């Protein structure tokens, strides 16, 4: 039985193909202008990696903000349910999923079957989302990955007091002009990011174990700051943290076939 999940987000799109309950291929692309283009491209790429075509799929579920516009999907499910499902399938002990994507941040609590119990999200303010890090990396003139690796080297993170991404630019530029070390500025930025995520996650209450999904989970600096500020160990994802939504959709597709 071959099933697929397709997650079309605001910045990237992901597809996961599963055969008899294991992942056989996945793909991540930057979004195209229209969600249906993104979905078609990412799905074809994942299928061709697995040596399959669209006709070989028994069932496909779409998710993400463009999920209702995917012509080849048999059904669609919200990305919140999919992230919970995918994360708990990979790490069965997980009960809290922190998902930090390109333009939003969510805290999701799930039961022992990966089903959604509760969630809370911010998609109104760029602070605490991937966009905040993007804005800061542009301001400091370093790549996103460099921003993460710089921060890890810092011994003395600088206080970043602004919440707003735009105001943090001003604060960071002042530090640059005062001759502060890039590593210390980057670490301060990661801490500010972690504080915003904590404010959101704190409202839902943390139940062990905790894991983190979404593109920002690849940023080791933010991950470390978040562990410090939440005082928890964040479980490492055994798969790319960016594909968890698509994976969850594929698992829902599998469950649908087994009904």
């Amino acid at each position, binding site marked *: 039985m071959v099933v697929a999940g397709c997650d079309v987000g605001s910045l990237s799109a992901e597809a996961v193909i599963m055969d008899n309950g294991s992942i056989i291929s996945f793909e991540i692309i930057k979004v195209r202008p229209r969600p249906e283009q993104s979905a078609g491209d990412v799905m074809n790429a994942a299928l061709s990696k697995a040596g399959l075509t669209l006709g070989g799929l028994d069932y496909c579920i779409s998710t993400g903000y463009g999920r209702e516009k995917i012509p080849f999907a048999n059904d669609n499910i919200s990305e919140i349910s999919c992230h919970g499902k995918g994360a708990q399938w990979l790490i069965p002990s997980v009960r809290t999923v922190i998902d930090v994507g390109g333009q939003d941040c969510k805290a999701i609590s799930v039961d022992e079957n990966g089903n959604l119990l509760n969630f809370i999200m911010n998609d109104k303010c*760029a602070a605490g989302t991937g*966009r905040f890090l993007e*804005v800061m990396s542009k301001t400091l003139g370093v790549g996103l990955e460099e921003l993460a690796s710089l921060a890890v080297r810092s011994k003395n993170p600088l206080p970043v007091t602004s919440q707003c991404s*735009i105001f943090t630019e*001003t604060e960071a530029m*002042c530090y640059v002009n005062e001759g502060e070390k890039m590593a210390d500025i980057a670490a301060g930025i990661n801490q500010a990011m972690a504080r915003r995520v904590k404010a959101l996650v704190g409202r839902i209450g943390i139940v062990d174990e905790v894991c983190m999904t979404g593109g920002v989970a690849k940023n080791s600096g933010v991950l470390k700051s978040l562990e410090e500020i939440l005082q928890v160990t964040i479980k490492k994802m055994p798969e790319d943290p960016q594909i968890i939504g698509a994976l969850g959709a594929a698992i829902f597709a599998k469950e649908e076939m087994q009904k």
Partner: protein
Amino acid sequence: MIVAGFDVGTLTTKAVVLNDGSIASYDIIPTEAKPEGAAKVVMENALSKAGISFTDLGFCVATGWGRKKVGFANKDMGEIPCLGKGAYRLIPSLCTVIDIGAQTSSVIRIGKNGNVLDYGTNDKCASGTGKFLGVIAEALELGIDDLGPLSLQSKNPVSISNQCAVFAESEVISHVNEGMELADIVSGINNSIARRQVTLAKRVGVKEDVCIIGGVAKNIGVVKDLESMLEVEMKKLPVDPQIIGALGAAVIAEQKAK
């Protein structure tokens, strides 16, 4: 008696020199994330315009975001009292001062002598501030000064749904890609700034006479939107609306020097 006031903002730094109660000179320069340096330069500029040397200054007060970095000031003060004092000095009939700067927006109710009765301020979020306009202007490849006049050409303002400046930037770019009129987009942006300010104004209460100060007061689109939303007519200021904080700091310096 010669005194001076400095307003070190996040985007611009301003100085006003008062000689026996009237404005002898003023200057505005970009802060460029160097508050200390900007304060020195703006002071030198203003003093040289007035033909006065630093030692002639009887007292000097600093205000604004970078006020603690002005080493040569005799005293520093928060912006709100300075804005009240500065506006009152120019128009004594004022009861409400609306300030929209680069990173803060405030609504201030003033009473006798320009003393602050009540105020509300937003300095946490760029929406409703000049920085919001700056981000959008850059995305649209327009100058900040173009936003006001351009918005007046709009017949059908676009509704901007994102409050966050970062997200509104993406929204505006997608509106451009959809082929919407630039004037309509800009008008929608001005409207969004005005709406945020109205929320603040309603919390504090607005009593006429009212004036608008700060860099965004130079945006005719925002001013017109605010006038129609608040149903008031903004009093015209006889000087550049960006220097009111520095003027107020100088007024306070005058009182301290006495």
